[in-house]
């Protein structure tokens, strides 16, 4: 007698319930997303001049030339600069960013900027996907950039932040040094002469 349905053996359900596992993994993912950071902080390396007085004096004499540009950072995101020797210089007010201080610095550092453009073009022409070669190229680029930045005739920047300016102002100006390929810069204190200069030429009090 032919029975419909075949054997009496029960079909085993081969499926495993994954829901609890997914739940747990979801929790773990959320945990990791909330408690960790992916971004490593960037950093900016600076070297400050040593405190030894003799070095300081020498450096001061060295930078007080026509090649120097002095940037004074004031409160409320105000920024002024003057070029060359302080005695006969005219203080100019400018602003942060592309149209302000960067334009001024790039104009001052035209030769280096051109050299860097040339170097960049050269690097673009020699682009390779080979990892070892690319690493070598990077090294080459770094070396040459350094040479251009430190070459004779590039300006020296003297940065003078006032006490009332903020940290972000200082970082912005240091950033512009990198943007404008200026290899030599110092952070200095505001002197009484600077205060007087701002007072007489712009009629403002520096803190």
């Amino acid at each position: 007698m032919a029975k419909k349905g075949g054997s009496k053996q029960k079909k085993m359900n081969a499926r495993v319930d994954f829901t609890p596992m997914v739940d747990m993994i979801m929790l773990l993912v959320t945990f990791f997303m909330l408690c960790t950071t992916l971004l490593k902080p960037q950093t900016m390396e600076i070297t400050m001049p040593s405190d030894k007085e003799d070095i300081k004096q020498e450096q001061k004499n060295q930078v007080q030339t026509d090649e120097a540009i002095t940037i004074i950072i004031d409160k409320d995101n105000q920024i002024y600069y003057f070029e060359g020797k302080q005695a006969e210089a005219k203080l100019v007010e400018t602003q942060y960013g592309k149209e302000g201080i960067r334009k001024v610095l790039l104009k001052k550092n035209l030769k280096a900027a051109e050299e860097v453009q040339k170097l960049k073009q050269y690097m673009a022409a020699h682009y390779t996907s080979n990892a070892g070669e690319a690493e070598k190229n990077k090294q080459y680029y770094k070396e040459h950039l350094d040479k251009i930045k430190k070459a004779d005739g590039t300006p020296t920047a003297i940065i003078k932040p006032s006490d009332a300016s903020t940290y972000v102002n200082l970082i912005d100006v240091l950033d512009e040094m990198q943007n404008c390929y200026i290899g030599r810069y110092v952070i200095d204190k505001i002197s009484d002469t600077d205060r007087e200069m701002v007072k007489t030429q712009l009629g403002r009090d520096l803190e």
Partner: protein
Amino acid sequence: MTPMSDVMVLLLTFFMLTATFTKEEPVAVNVPGSVSEIKIPESNIMTIFVSPEGKVFMVMDSPDRQKQMAEQVMQDNESLNLDAAQLKTFANAPTFGTPLNVTSAWCNLDGGKRNEYLTKNAAAGIPCDSVNDELKVWVSAARQACGEDMRIAIKADKTTPYKTIKNVMNSLRSIDESRYNLITTLKSGE
């Protein structure tokens, strides 16, 4: 359901492998953006935090180094006296920053209270002005304990007045620490 759990497992592995845990910081420091692309070194680094109010905190990258530094400070300066238990608490503190003479009392506080002290108390922060410069003591002790390879990083808030930064820089300069890193984030745009 299976494809979803597959994706989830992938995500989980990705996060576990790439991420690093955020460190507990007493003050929320909003660092400025910069175009600099240098990454911060992995180990042997001392971080100096400067809060928007101008308070200074410090931390070493490992409890071991923090302990060595504290031991060095105790040798150099008699205003710091920690017993073994306090030293252990100090070594594991995620950040510290109290005047030397109250540090042992600070170590006796409960875990939560310690952090509260750093954020709320007006006396918190390492003194670092020309009158009382204790940052100098800490940094030179750390330099002695951790060797020449130790890097110094300054992590300051965007709105921190330059006056405090100047004090920190001056005290670093006075002990001939002229190379240090300023921590920034990557600037977006431009």
